[in-house]
């Protein structure tokens, strides 16, 4: 029963967040502000992780494909498909859930316990809309870009480290990554990442918004926000994979 209660509360929260803005120009400014904080601020970590992941997948698959029956260009195929299908949309989203999710939950939670949210409400401002809507839109707009960026860097990382380690040749890797390439896979990844982006921004915001108490509870909300959004990402990963790829 608690599940339904929380789901209903979450639904009403989202509905409020998408209520009519007091003033549109302010919301536009806020969206750019959030893109800057949530999106641009995550470029570094996404880049590092993607390059290393691409490199690791390359070296691991080259190691496993030692049989003479499997052509070496399969390494390129493996890197491309694992980056596009799963790694970039899902793992990057999980990492963002940790980084962005905890910052969203603690920011909003702190605003709640220091009465900043009450202050907004008293001014007649829809606090959920003002605080959360720009975060959700910023994530929806920017996370797919991050995901494409991650795909690109992962494949590039695989290339560079594969060549450097001498496990694959220049020609084979390039042949591999273009071999029977299905553009639909990228669309599929973008759909997934948009759904995850919504979860990453809204679930921690929800936990932060309904914090009560003090600094300790803010920490707790932040943890909850990250845990619930990660679990939801994994659940939706499974559901969407089933829906979109079967």
């Amino acid at each position, binding site marked *: 029963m608690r599940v339904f209660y929380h789901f209903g509360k979450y639904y009403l929260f989202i509905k409020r967040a998408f209520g009519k803005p*007091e*003033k549109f120009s*302010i919301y536009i400014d806020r969206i750019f502000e959030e893109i800057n904080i949530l999106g641009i601020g995550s470029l570094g970590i996404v880049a590092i992780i993607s390059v290393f992941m691409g490199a690791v997948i390359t070296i691991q698959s080259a190691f496993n494909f030692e049989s003479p029956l499997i052509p070496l260009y399969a390494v390129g195929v493996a890197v491309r498909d694992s980056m596009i299908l799963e790694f970039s949309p899902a793992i990057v989203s999980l990492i963002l859930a940790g980084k962005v999710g905890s910052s969203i939950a603690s920011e909003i939670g*702190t605003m709640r316990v*220091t*009465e*900043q949210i*009450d*202050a907004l*409400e*008293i*001014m*007649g*401002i829809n606090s959920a809309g003002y605080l959360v809507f720009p975060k959700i839109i910023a994530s929806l707009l920017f996370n797919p870009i991050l995901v494409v960026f991650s795909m690109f860097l992962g494949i590039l990382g695989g290339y560079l480290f594969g060549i450097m380690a001498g496990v694959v040749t220049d020609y084979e890797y390039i042949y591999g990554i273009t071999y029977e390439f299905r553009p639909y896979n990228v669309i599929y990844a973008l759909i997934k990442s948009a759904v995850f982006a919504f979860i990453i921004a809204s679930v921690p915001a929800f936990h932060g918004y309904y914090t009560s108490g003090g600094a300790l509870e803010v920490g707790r909300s932040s943890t909850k926000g990250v845990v619930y959004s990660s679990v939801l990402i994994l659940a939706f990963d499974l559901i969407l994979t089933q829906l979109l790829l079967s």
Partner: protein
Amino acid sequence: MIQVNNISKSFTGRSILKDINFTFETGKTNIIIGESGSGKTTLLKCMVGLNEIDSGEILYDGRSFFDLDFKGKKAIRKEIGMLFQGWCLVRLKTVEENVVFPLSMFTDMSAEEKRDRANFCLQRVNLNNANNLYPSELSGGMKKRVAIARAIAVQPKYLFCDEPNSGLDPKTSIVIDSLIKEITEEYNITTIVITHDMNSVIEIGDNIMFIYKGEKWWEGTKHEILKTNNQEICDFVYATEFMKDLKEKFQ
């Protein structure tokens, strides 16, 4: 004028406010006093709808707040300026941005007009050369003043202050108090001030309500409060030896 009629409120079965009736008058500083935990903040939060009430009615110049729909409530809230017990400036904004914020939200002023208005309000509360500081760089008294400046920026009809001078030295307290009183009279605002501080009560209290354990125990003016013989009020007003001595000297 704000009328509070028969307000009751309980939290999880514990009754906090019991059948409160009061009229807060326009152009006057209305003061709510009472011990810690007597329900002062709760009453204020009920009045603006941050806490739901169990029963009762609140009239803002005749408009019944709880009968209004969401939009109507919002319209009234735009006429309210409020100072919270904690500080509640937006942390990531500078002093000037904090004051400009409600203006950007609710008016169509140009950037320059907004800045002028913000500067005017900041000067009104005697806060000069602090425009580009962040709330974390301000002292307690400065924060209160920024909060007052922000509250008056949109020219509210109602100003609510929850302990505006808690944590301030006596001299700054008086400055803040008289500022609130001046603004109230200058713009003919209905002001409600919650306080623990008897100095403030004597200094600015036009119309006083004493809450005791969630009930309205007494009401009157600052002249009357010094003369009353009500035991609970005397315990509150003459809590310190100093005040007791003072009373004996007068009698």
